[in-house]
């Protein structure tokens, strides 16, 4: 017996089967990236804007608890993961206990991240130096991973799928472009003498995650890196100073890109722009102090054609 809608149903079925769908995009990869980021951020402490008003009464107890917990290396490492930006994960490595006295400048008392950083580092017992920002001994020597694909600024801008930023009155002495396994792009600009650069500016798409690891020296000096929270154009930024740290580039799945790890022996300012999925992570490695680095960061402007 014929269904009264049989012809119509068959026509609908045929239309569905003959429909030309767009190719399915890489949804699994996008989901994996989102979930990896979500899981990572869910392990973080999200501070409200007026966090200190809420937490001040608890601060003393918290610091005491942290001090006790830091006796356990694994806990120390886990707590280090509280820090970071959307495109940046920070891990502290477990220091080897040592009696070597080293100086840790006091970070700003108003910075939430600094408060944790201060707790992470051993309390200062020696007379502090006069300078608030420790000067690195040298700027980093970028390794082959970073320094591949030298080209002109114009060529780098032609290749990059985002607008590159440069200081208004200074051209880079070297420009490198890197497409990381087609997963994202990084552009590196060196300013000053390439052999002893005054500043190195990194610009990379956010889905190429940066991962900074606190450095344990061969001499087993406790990590002295200080992390200050600051702002660039009103957006949260982080300032690393005081000691070298390790930088590892991660792919979109959160896995380290082989050969990308290097030691950064410079003060480093890190900030981000853009939306959740398609932002840019900026890093300035410099001999300059925080204030000057922020001024440079805020002066950056798009490359003029």
């Amino acid at each position, binding site marked *: 017996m014929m269904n009264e*809608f*049989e*012809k*119509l*149903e*068959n*026509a*609908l*079925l*045929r*239309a*569905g*089967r*003959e*429909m*030309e*769908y*767009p190719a*399915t*995009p890489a*949804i*699994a990869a*996008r*989901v*994996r990236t*989102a*979930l*990896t980021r*979500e*899981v990572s951020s869910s392990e973080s402490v999200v501070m409200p804007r007026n966090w200190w008003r809420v937490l001040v009464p608890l601060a003393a107890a918290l610091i005491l608890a942290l001090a006790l917990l830091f006796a356990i290396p694994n806990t120390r490492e886990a707590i280090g993961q509280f820090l970071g930006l959307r495109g940046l994960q920070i891990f502290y490595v477990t220091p080897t206990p040592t009696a070597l006295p080293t100086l840790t400048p006091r970070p700003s008392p108003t910075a939430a991240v600094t408060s944790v950083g201060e707790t992470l580092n051993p309390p200062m017992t020696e007379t502090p130096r006069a300078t608030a920002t420790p000067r690195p001994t040298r700027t980093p020597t970028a390794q082959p991973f970073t320094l591949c694909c030298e080209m002109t600024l114009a060529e780098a801008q032609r290749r990059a799928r985002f607008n590159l930023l440069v200081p208004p009155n200074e051209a880079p002495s070297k420009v490198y472009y890197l497409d990381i396994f087609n997963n994202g792009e990084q552009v590196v600009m060196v300013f000053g003498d390439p052999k002893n650069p005054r500043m190195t500016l990194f610009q990379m798409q956010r889905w190429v995650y940066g991962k900074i690891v606190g450095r344990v020296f061969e001499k087993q000096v406790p990590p002295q890196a200080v992390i200050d929270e600051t702002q660039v154009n009103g957006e949260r930024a982080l300032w690393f100073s005081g000691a070298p740290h390790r930088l590892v580039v991660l792919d979109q799945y959160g896995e380290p890109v082989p050969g990308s790890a290097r030691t950064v022996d410079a003060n480093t300012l890190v900030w981000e722009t853009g939306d959740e999925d398609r932002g840019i992570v900026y890093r300035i490695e410099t001999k300059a102090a925080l204030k000057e680095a922020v001024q440079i960061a805020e002066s950056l402007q798009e490359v003029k054609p």
Partner: protein
Amino acid sequence: MLQPLYSSWESKNGFPLRAMEPIEQEQQLIRRAKSGDIAAYDALVRAYETLAFRAAYLITRDEHEAADAAQDAFVRAYRALGSFRLGEPFRPWLMRIVTNQALNRIQAIKRRVNMNERYVKAETENRETSDAQTHLETREQNEKLMRAVSRLKADDQTLITLRYFLELPEIEVAQTLNIPQGTVKSRLHRTLAKLREIIRAEFPDLAEIV
């Protein structure tokens, strides 16, 4: 007469529209994903991404919206895995989230008409750039039929999409829409009747299929 594809679930392009894993393996993946194993969930996403994307595309009529809707749906599904009962069928549970995400996007951006117009335009362009001589009449008929379907209310379009374009069995349509199977039957009947009226009034060329 066309036979339903319920058992084969292979698209004309050869993409599997059904999970490649047997039920037990799928349940095992879900169990692991529920405990936070993202790799296990990744396998589930891969098995269903084409179906989810196509369902979202049929509802939104926009490739980018569909991709975003499918992605959001998988992320939300992961978060909601705690409420998923092991042993229950996963596909309709997932499809419910996908269709809700796609419908939410339409409601949020309130541009359904534009989307339909874009879809028809895209279909026309596809037709012009592909083999123009192949099944031209059928293509035109399909295009008009899609236009007729787009005249239905969003809920009715979703019903048609799930049942005929994606060829889900009635039981899965019911599970996806969270309504009794009997309601699916009655709603399908009413929706086809409405569609027939629309075709008779606005697409007389299609009279032969009604």
